[in-house]
């Protein structure tokens, strides 16, 4: 009873935050609503006994990814409100019925289903070890591939974000040099892009 009430409250907040994310014109507010949504999802994981997953969700999504999102939005958005007419307004006319149809379909499918049997036994209290074991046995390959993916992404980010090609950079400069080189304009750069 308590669990169901808690679930309804948390899920309600999650849905409301997700809606607010889509409907708010203010991007910073939207991003913060997304943080609320992610927090609610973490709470749902917690209710399912997946404590590690909940903590990882908070740290990775709310604590790291969204911080960078909000950071980027704050730097890039000139005004507080992103206004002006949407050039592709007509597409929304198409999106609404399609989205509605998908929603209806999902509701029909989910309502018609009988609840699947719960996994055997209660959720293990120490699921960190279990997750670790799985990651290094059955899911070893995806795990290792992800590290290659991160390496490639890192190389790519350095490639795309490097501000100046050559001239200002001493030969064979490592990352140190680039930090030193960018130290000076650090303060003035975001200023220029404000408002």
């Amino acid at each position, binding site marked *: 009873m308590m669990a169901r009430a808690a679930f309804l409250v948390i899920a309600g907040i999650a849905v409301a935050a997700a809606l607010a994310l889509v409907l708010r014109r203010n991007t910073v507010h939207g991003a913060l609503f997304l943080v609320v949504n992610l927090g609610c999802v973490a709470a749902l994981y917690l209710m399912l006994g997946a404590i590690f997953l909940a903590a990882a969700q908070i740290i990775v999504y709310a604590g790291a990814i969204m911080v960078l999102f909000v950071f980027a939005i704050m730097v890039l958005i000139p005004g507080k409100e992103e206004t002006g007419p949407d050039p592709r307004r007509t597409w929304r006319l198409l999106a609404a019925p399609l989205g509605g149809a998908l929603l209806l379909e999902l509701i029909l499918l989910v309502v018609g289903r009988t609840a699947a049997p719960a996994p055997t036994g209660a959720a293990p209290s120490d699921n960190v070890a279990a997750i670790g074991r799985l990651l290094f046995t*059955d899911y070893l390959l*995806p795990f290792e*591939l992800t590290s290659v*993916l991160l390496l*490639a*992404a890192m*190389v790519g980010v350095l490639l795309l974000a490097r501000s100046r090609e050559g001239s200002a950079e001493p030969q064979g400069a490592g990352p140190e040099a680039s930090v030193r080189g960018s130290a000076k304009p650090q303060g003035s750069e975001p200023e220029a892009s404000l408002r």
Partner: protein
Amino acid sequence: MIAFALEIGVGALMLLVFIATLVARGDDRRWVGWLAAAGTLALTLLALPLSPAPAQLGGAFVQDGLALFAKRLFLAATFIGLLGGLSLPGRPFLRRAGEYHILVLASLLGMLVLASARDLVLLFVAFELMSIPLYILAGFAKREAGAVEAALKFFLVGSVSSAVMAYGLSFVYGAVRTTSLAGVAKAMPDGDGLLILGLLAVFGGFGFKIAAFPFHMWVPDTYEAAPTPFVAWLSVTPKAAGFVALFRVYFEGMGTAVSFWVPVAAGLATLTIVAGNLMALPQQNAKRLLAYSGIAHIGYMLVGFAATSASGTAMVLFYLVAYVFGNMGAFLVVEAVARSEGSEHLAAFRGLAQRSPLLALAMLLFLLSLGGIPFVAGFWAKLYVFWAAATAGLYWLVLLGALLTVVALFYYLIVAKRMYIEAPPATTRVPLEPMLALAVLLCALGVVILGVYPKPLVMAALRVAAPLF
């Protein structure tokens, strides 16, 4: 371990290139590219004698005939693509050659694993490993006009498609409660609505990756702005990987339930063929023309997919090989001409036959192959695909495809006309880098050999496709 030999090899090669880049000094680091190309060639040769191995990691990774067939294709195509890109001019390619090749190899690793993935998690991770380096490579020449826009378009469409795919995969998992594709295939005959909805969403994600019609918007712009040797590779290998993954997800082990995908694939094929061919007609930029024609070719392959049979699958595999050689070759010739004339406009091809007869001949071969003229690879590819579809009873689809092949021939022959009939603006030869010439030569050989003697490859494709059903 032997089952992972190729993946480990590509991973090690990537790390080797990475380290070489770190220790490299000076402004010209293109020698790193030689390392990557040589390594890929070595791995291609290594892949040839490999034989199927038992499934690994609890069935999540299979090294069967299909996987090996696909991996050999990916490796060979990557080798040709790397050869074509070795002599790219421009500062970024000199200084950042290491990064370019690291990203290509990372993407290649993703493709190799994708061809073997029999697990939803592995499938998705491999897909992302294949795709994300491609976004970056599309924006590689970031100082040039349009490159950033192209990369961004590709990235946005690609990440939305990944999201759709992940969303679909979550439904699939919810319905079958296992991440194993074998489990999915087993549950499919029950016709669970949630499972079908999930698989349809995944199909949408695949549609973006292989650039089928309603999901194709990124293709022309990205192709036009990205470096051409990369585009040559981009236009074929990820598509091939996408098709192999499609077979794994939608065919393998499903038995009679595969017939469910016929209307989906046939509908998508119709749209893609019609749209791709018609939109290619007015194009005046060679890369955009090839981009739209590439979309049309995806449509023809979807015709083979719609046959939902072992022979259909095999014919798509054959088509993929023919498409790899034909399309890559055409893009590489465009690169050679563009490097000499400084333009990718069709007008740059005027009188190419009088200036560089061999280059023009190669281009003619590629165009004929793409158009489906007898005795080059593309003819057999189209014929076999249509034959498979007709066997499955999809006569209307065959008729439509054949009709639009005529349209395709029209725009391919316009290029040929420019090369052979119109007068050249200058009489100088088009200079050709040796490595680029080698890459073009390899493609031309592939097209001609497959056109004259397709039988061994067709047999091999039939052999590897049979166990799926």
